[in-house]
């Protein structure tokens, strides 16, 4: 059990899906107790490899050998449970908790302590509490999961994964939905795990994170290993180069924008949470956005950014005060359908829950909000539909063998592209994007940025929300900052520094409207 020996030796692993080779002769080694970063573009095969390790794709459904802790890993019967028993734990890209159960219940789901057929609740909660404390996770075991923020849910997932004495912990894009503070917290937790000699395989598209915690980084491209080296071997540029196979000079594209008239203006908007009408989610928001402009909305998690855009889209808050004007005309938006009629489109925050019909084809997903474009008398022109959808799919470089493939066969990032594609096809006047690059690789991010710039240059007004402040600052012409459901003011990009925005977002600074 010395630190530094090889715990996981992956040898010539190949995994094929109909039409795609997700992993192509992959070999690399993971050392005990290290944090092993795994990176690559969307669809490079990262999640697929992790699903092999965790038994989702059992032994025999792939080629090659995996040596784990000195012997060959053969997950055949009840492979997922077997992997867990052997000490391989995984936190998936998407959160998988039961919202109506408590933290403790979730952690012990499927392995509740029982005595004569009855669950020992006290034991369950005390063990859950110990576990949470051991790794420094600051969550109450009796709190219902639905009351937690995404960050805490992530911690519960980790605790759940660790509850069986994991030797290897796999984290698949754990930070894509976390705020900066929560990311810091997660980094501490991982450092703590390392002290407990837990090996960590860490996947993320936020490459800076590798340089904070990884010991080794392996880069996958198109299912092949292109580099597997100690972290000191890489620089950020070099890493990006390995990932995308070419050099990337800048992170954000040049701007080609001509800002025009005001399209959407919001004044003094106040709204209640429709599920809990005593909670005020918006407490005075005013801003406007112009043709050809990108307006960034910054704020901490819970500041009401997503609530704001969902309310604008007619799908969330009960508006109690304030006005919304589109091209000068006051409008009343009661549903997504109304919003779309006024030329609004929304790329929602959560692609699986809100963005996609996972069991349907990519084609049907892209065309769903746009069927009016293809509907003739009593029938849909399916060929026109295919042409339009494949044009979008192509311009966003969605990686798939066919538009007929189901949305759930795509990698996370490519699913996000489908969501963007469907809204681009609707030709909006105002495109609202709620965290549009979540889980998207650097190369594709750049493509999406370019696309945003191009749309703006064609006169579309874009509202951008992002959990990454850098993205907001890099893309926006102006930045509106929110704090506790209020707009704290709007900064021109020339005066928006990280410090200034953070000060406003935490409520320390406010631009008074004169």
């Amino acid at each position: 059990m010395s630190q530094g020996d090889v715990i996981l030796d992956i040898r010539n692993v190949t995994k094929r899906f109909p039409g795609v080779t997700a992993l192509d002769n992959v070999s690399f080694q993971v050392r005990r107790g290290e944090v092993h970063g795994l990176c690559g573009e969307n669809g490079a095969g990262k999640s697929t490899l992790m699903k092999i390790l965790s038994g989702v794709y059992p032994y025999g459904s792939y080629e090659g050998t995996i040596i784990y802790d000195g012997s060959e890993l053969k997950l055949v019967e009840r492979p997922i449970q077997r992997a867990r028993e052997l000490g391989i734990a995984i936190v998936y890209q998407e959160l998988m908790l039961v919202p109506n159960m408590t933290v403790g219940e979730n952690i012990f789901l499927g392995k509740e302590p029982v005595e004569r057929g009855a669950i020992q609740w006290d034991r369950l909660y005390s063990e859950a509490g110990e576990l949470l404390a051991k790794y420094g996770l600051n969550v109450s075991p009796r709190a219902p999961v639905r009351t937690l923020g995404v960050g805490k849910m992530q911690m519960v997932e980790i605790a759940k994964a660790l509850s069986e004495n994991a030797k290897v912990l796999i984290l698949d894009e754990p930070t894509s939905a976390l705020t900066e503070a929560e990311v810091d917290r997660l980094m501490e937790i991982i450092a703590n795990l390392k002290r407990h000699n837990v090996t960590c395989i860490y996947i993320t598209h936020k490459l800076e994170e590798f340089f904070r915690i990884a010991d080794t980084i392996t880069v996958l491209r198109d299912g092949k290993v292109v580099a597997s080296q100690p972290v000191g071997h890489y620089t950020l540029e070099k890493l990006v180069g390995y990932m995308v196979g070419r050099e990337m000079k800048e992170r954000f594209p040049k701007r080609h924008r001509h800002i025009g008239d005001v399209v959407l203006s919001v004044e003094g908007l106040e709204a209640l949470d429709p599920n809990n009408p005593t909670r005020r989610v918006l407490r005075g928001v005013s801003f406007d956005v112009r043709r050809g402009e990108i307006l960034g909305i910054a704020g901490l998690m819970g500041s009401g950014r997503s609530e704001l855009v969902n309310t604008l889209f007619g799908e969330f808050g009960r508006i109690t005060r304030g006005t919304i004007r589109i091209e000068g005309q006051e409008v009343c938006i009661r549903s997504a359908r109304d919003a779309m009629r006024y030329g609004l489109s929304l790329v929602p925050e959560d692609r699986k829950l809100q963005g996609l019909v996972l069991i349907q084809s990519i084609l049907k997903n892209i065309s769903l909000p746009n069927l009016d474009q293809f509907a003739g008398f009593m029938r849909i022109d399916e060929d026109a539909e295919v042409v339009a959808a494949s044009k979008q799919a192509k311009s966003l470089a969605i990686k798939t063998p066919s538009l007929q493939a189901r949305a759930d066969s795509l990698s996370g990032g490519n699913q996000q592209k489908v969501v963007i594609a469907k809204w681009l096809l609707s030709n909006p006047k105002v495109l609202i994007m709620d965290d549009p690059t979540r889980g998207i690789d650097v190369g594709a991010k750049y493509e999406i940025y370019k696309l945003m710039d191009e749309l703006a240059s064609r006169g579309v007004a874009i509202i951008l929300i992002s959990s990454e402040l850098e993205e907001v600052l890099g893309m926006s012409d102006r930045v509106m900052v929110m704090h506790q459901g209020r707009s704290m003011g709007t900064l021109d990009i020339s005066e928006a520094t990280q410090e200034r925005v953070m000060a406003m977002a935490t409520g320390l600074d406010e631009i008074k409207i004169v």
Partner: protein
Amino acid sequence: MDILKTSETQTVNARSALMEDILTRLKSNFQTYAILFALGALWILFTILTNGAYMGPQNISNLFRQMTVTSFLAIGMVFVIVTGNIDLSVGRLAGFVSVVVAYFQANVWFRQIPDQPLLSAVLSVLIGLGVGLLWGVLQGYIIAFLGVPSFIVTLGSMFILSGAILLVTQGKTIPANQPIFSDIAQGYLPQTLGWAIGFIVLVALLLRSLNKIRRKRKYGLQPPNIGVELAGVIITSALVFGYIYWVNEYRGIQTPVFLLALTALVMSHLANNTRFGRYAYAIGGNREAARLSGVNIQRSIFLVFALMGLLCGIAGVVLASYVGYGTIAAGQGYELDAIASAILGGTSTLGGVGTISGALIGALIMSSLTTGLQMLNVAPAWQYVVKGAVLVLAVYADVYFKRSRQ
């Protein structure tokens, strides 16, 4: 359009492209073929056990006619289940429609418009469809706009309709056997008309294929393989002609089967090629995503239940004509047959998945079982047991194959 094609090289030889085309077709309709296969196996089994009597023209003719009432219900049930709902009232609603129609036949027409069989038949049909549609609209309104779960609303409605049937019939049997009306479910199309329909189907299929190819060309899309397309047309029309030939050996195409085929065509079109259908599938697949995509969920669900009501109206009229009277037991338990047919045909209880053609084959399997077991003199008690077991087995087989294909 490289994104639409799997093949890496353009120079794949024609044969493997053809194979691939066929394979993708087979795969995308895997469940339909599996269930067709099951149906074939069932028929062969019964034919052997009955020394060939099972496949006789008269028996086949009756078998298809027997399935029509539940088939109308099963078709509508596909939409209902696809949107993630359920309708338990369909059997009793069809039954209610049948007794109302019988009531008018026995008590009203005969006094108000005697000796006008055509007019009274037309009026009966209109009243039947109207009652069904109205009830569907009412249920749809309560479910979609007032937000009461469909399970509850239709369960309640099942009770209410049972009461209504008693009120209308006063516990007695009402005859509904005026000449033209009876033909709706008991009549046959003249043999020459039967053949003419066969030719119309053939021409329509050919035109449709040509149109498909022409339109794909127009948009610069990869046109379907002509051989495969043609094979599809030939197989389909061979089945249609075979069927026509066989039932003509008896007395011709059964009127209710013809009506069912027309209805099924319209409904298939609704499901696949209209916004209404697309929205229904999207709602069942992910309600939230559909809503955010601008789908008017309340309206869609309302329409689905209204349509279900209309189909119950049709089923009720056919039922009254088929049995020739309205009774207190009319339509009892039909909802279960309808649900079973839809599910046998591959409709997912989780919503978002299901086809009209599948439901029809499902209904055919149910009806084939009933007829076959009756011919073998199996006691009714065991007929239920066998049907139930087949349903569970079929779904298990589907689950099993899905798992092993992964």
